[in-house]
């Protein structure tokens, strides 16, 4: 299908706050994004013409923010509300090979939903990992450098060569990806075997490094992962904030113009969807 025909749902609830720039990222690449409130899928408190069905979209994006305030574990409330009313629709959506993207709070929601990592099934009943409080115990808004580690499985990075480093800013208080202590080794083994590792935090020399280049203390510097099929992808940093070179933190140092590092992620998924559907 043509990119112009790809329908993207940018989902929101109260406290979502990155929907506008997420919408804009897809729109400027020619797709048809729409900002949809979860209640439009659930049919609550909305008019008939506001009702929507997940099946009508090709890409589901869960943007960043503080859904419901994130006063309990980040993303948990939103995930619970989706699980309660949309579980089967979500499973079918992923099963069809459509794409699901979670950025920042969206990544937290996908982990809480059991869609990520999703080692052995599309959607685990119980979360298999957690994005927990940063080692610094603070909200961290800073530039982060992401090394692309995926070998071709992830739909969202197909246009990015393996080993490339992207600048995407991070802005979160809970981004440390951890697995249950008894299953840590096996989890990382699976991530590697199934080509689920997508981005790692590196320093300006391209080496794996600690804080602040890894802003949250995530084990093994993991910044983003996909599911074994490569069609569900979550990352903590914000590619939608760097669609233009002029949104990079240091762009005035080199006088470049043109695209920002985040664009390749949106281009990749639109390209993959247009090939597959």
């Amino acid at each position, binding site marked *: 299908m043509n990119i112009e025909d790809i329908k993207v749902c940018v989902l929101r609830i*109260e*406290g*979502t*706050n*990155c929907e*506008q*720039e997420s919408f*804009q990222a897809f729109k*400027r690449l020619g797709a048809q994004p729409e900002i949809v*409130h979860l*209640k439009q899928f659930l049919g609550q*408190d*909305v*008019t008939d013409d*506001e009702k929507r069905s997940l099946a009508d979209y090709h890409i589901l994006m869960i943007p*960043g*923010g*503080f859904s*419901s*305030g994130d006063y309990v574990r980040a993303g948990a409330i939103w995930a619970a509300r989706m699980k309660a009313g949309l579980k089967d629709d979500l499973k079918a959506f992923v099963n069809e090979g459509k794409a699901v993207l979670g950025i920042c709070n969206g990544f937290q929601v996908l982990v809480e939903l059991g869609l990520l990592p999703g080692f052995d099934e599309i959607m685990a009943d119980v979360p298999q990992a957690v994005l927990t409080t940063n080692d610094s115990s*603070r*909200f*961290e*808004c*800073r*530039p982060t450098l992401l090394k692309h580690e995926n070998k071709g499985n992830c739909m969202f990075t197909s246009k990015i060569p393996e080993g490339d480093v992207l*600048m995407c*800013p991070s*802005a979160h208080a809970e981004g440390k990806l951890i697995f249950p202590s008894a299953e840590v080794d096996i989890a990382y083994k699976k991530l590697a075997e199934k080509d689920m590792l997508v981005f790692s935090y590196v320093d*300006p020399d391209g080496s794996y490094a600690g804080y602040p280049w890894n802003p949250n203390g995530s084990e093994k510097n993991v910044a983003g992962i996909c599911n074994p099929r490569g069609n569900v992808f979550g990352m903590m940093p*914000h590619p*939608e*904030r*760097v*669609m233009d070179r*002029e*949104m990079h*933190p*240091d762009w*005035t*140092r080199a006088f470049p*113009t043109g695209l920002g590092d985040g664009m390749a992620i949106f281009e990749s998924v639109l390209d993959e969807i247009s090939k597959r559907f």
Partner: protein
Amino acid sequence: MKADHLYKKLEASFPFFEVLLDKASDDDLEALGQESGTGLSVDELKRIKLHFDTLGRNPTDVELQSLGQAWSEHCCYKSSKSILRDFVFGIDNSQVIDRGDAGVMEFDEKYAYSLRIESHNHPSAVEPYGGAATGIGGIVRDVLCMGCQPIALIDPLFFGSLDHPHDQIPKGTKHPTYLLSGVVSGIRDYGNRIGIPTVSGGVYFDDSYLGNCLVNVGCVGIAKKEDLYENKVGGVGDNLILVGGFTGRDGIHGVTFASAVLTDKSETESRGAVQLGDPIMKEPLIHAILEVGQKKLITGMKDLGGGGLSCVCGELAFAAGYGVDVHLDRVPTKEEGLLPWEIWVSESQERMMLAVSDDNIDKVMQVFKKYDVPATLMGKVIPEKIARVFFDGTVILEVDLEFLTGGPEYCRPMAHVKPDLKAETKLPVLPSDNVDILLDLLSDANVCSKEWLIRQYDHEVRGSTAIKPLQGDIRHSTHGDASVMKPVADSWRGLAIAVAANPWLTSVDPLKGGKSVMDEMCRNIVAVGGRPHSLSNCLNFGNPEIPERLGEFHQAVKGLGEVAEALDLPIPSGNVSFYNETAMGSILPTVTVMGVGIVPDIRKAITADIKSHGSSIYLIGETKDEMGGSLLYRKYDGFCNNAPDVDIAHLQNSIDKVLAVMDEGHVLACHDISDGGLAVSISEMCIGGGVGADLNIDSDQIASVELYSESNTRWLVEVVRGAETEFEEKMSGMPISKLGTTGGQSLKVSHNGSTLIDIELEKLDKAWRETLWNKMG
């Protein structure tokens, strides 16, 4: 209490009283003003009595409370209005679109931007987290109620010294580290949650703020011109719909609390004046408000700030020449048993009032239902210019809106005692090595890196912060002079946003201080390639009933107004905060300015960090021996009454020339010279670029003036190697001097050929970067 006998219970199903002003002595009135929490003076109460005498009755308790809110310093600017009228209200040009709760200015043909800065000082001094958070909430509503999407938050903060010994903190006062930590957390948790980037600000430390910290909060928004709204109803028959959070006992008497000095009892007595914030009510409220606005379902709106319902209902209707009937018992409350007057004056957060025609009520209700935001139909616009409030069928308030909103205005006595020309100059005792001085200045809390807090704020949510508060190489970024937003998706036009304040200079010489703050704001905006376009100010001063304080206010506003008028910079919104004092005395006179500039193409914006080796460093402007209020003198115990002045024509000329030479592409980096002078400025440029510099200053003045003077209208620029001749030609007629070249990993500064400073960048970086981390952890 002493005034209890003035309250006579009236027949009603709820506690409701007549206030027997006709039987009150002067002593009774004085007690009444204090005990009622209204802060009304004896004279003001007598004026109220006279008014009600003509009606043949006494006021009710609800009416008295309502008048107390409307006539508070905070709401009616009774001590400042005549001065503001003399110097700033008249500054106008064709770019001003509206002067409502926020000012609205032209952005381009299709879009307008709005701006406002205000104070949330007293609440933050008592409860830093909630005070600061609800400060953000309030300023966001000011921008929102003009129909604008908020796009940037700006927070200048002022505290006592972080090193102040804990055992010497006055009674009822909290330690500055606790206050700073609480305020930053409050801004972070509210601003980050509602998804509006915090892009600019400043943190200032001086022990005059020990008992009374200042939390100034600013917001800038954007809207298509067709989506703008005014803060008034459309016409008679319009309905008032209250939307947002429930009303509670939090935030009662906030404006009267803000209009009195703080005491050691404020903590216990006024805790209830601080509101409670709920960003997850605000975030959907923003969406719902913008949706009903863009769908043209409303005729006007206004936010509930100081005075709560008591101010908004009347003002919204009266602005259009009408009045209102209000049904107070319909207001959803946080708890049972709120008294009618409490509901009427509560300043609970996250509330807005919409004016809606009959046809659109259902549609508006539907939108708010979708976002889970409560909406309550609670009043109707009537032709008579009165506010009439019903509770359970009883009329509990009926006042003439002209009387209610026509608060008193005072021309209080003032004394001009500054600059103190009799005060003798005291030279500072300086360390012999300039390297030691530079390291001291760089590590001073007023200069040092503010990364500790900047990185706790999300400064790039919404993806439109093109120039961020931290600039330069991502390994060692430095402070910028201004941030630049790209507010419209399909346009490269940008808004530069900068803050300026210099309380020390203003304290030495309020007139020059007012001018200097304007100069600094302009310098900051020009430094990133913006042309100053408008500003909003927050004027924080002590008790205006003390003539010396009001004298400082008068002179500072005069200075500010002189520059703004000459530069044709309108001030479409602003705020005055008086009574910032405690038993220990007043704060320094603090003029905070939030300037907005237009950047024609953000792709040409410039940052402060040095970009390359071998380029040339020029000083633009003249360095003068005017050390009054300077960081150097403060640090090393000097005093001088000669504070930096502003040559306004020169400032105008400099702005034009610097922007022109930037447009030619000759300038790689630019940084204004302010606190700590040239030496600090070049250090910050080197730190941000990770590139050193070798400079020599040829002059007849002593080195300490050349290095540390804070003379106005100066910038340091890095000029492209090979473009020096074009640069100098373009700047002809301007005082410029080539100081040297960039390169290496150290900073070397000489004076008439003899070396004063020679130090590795790494040491500069460490001194500048670590202070706040060490103090705050």
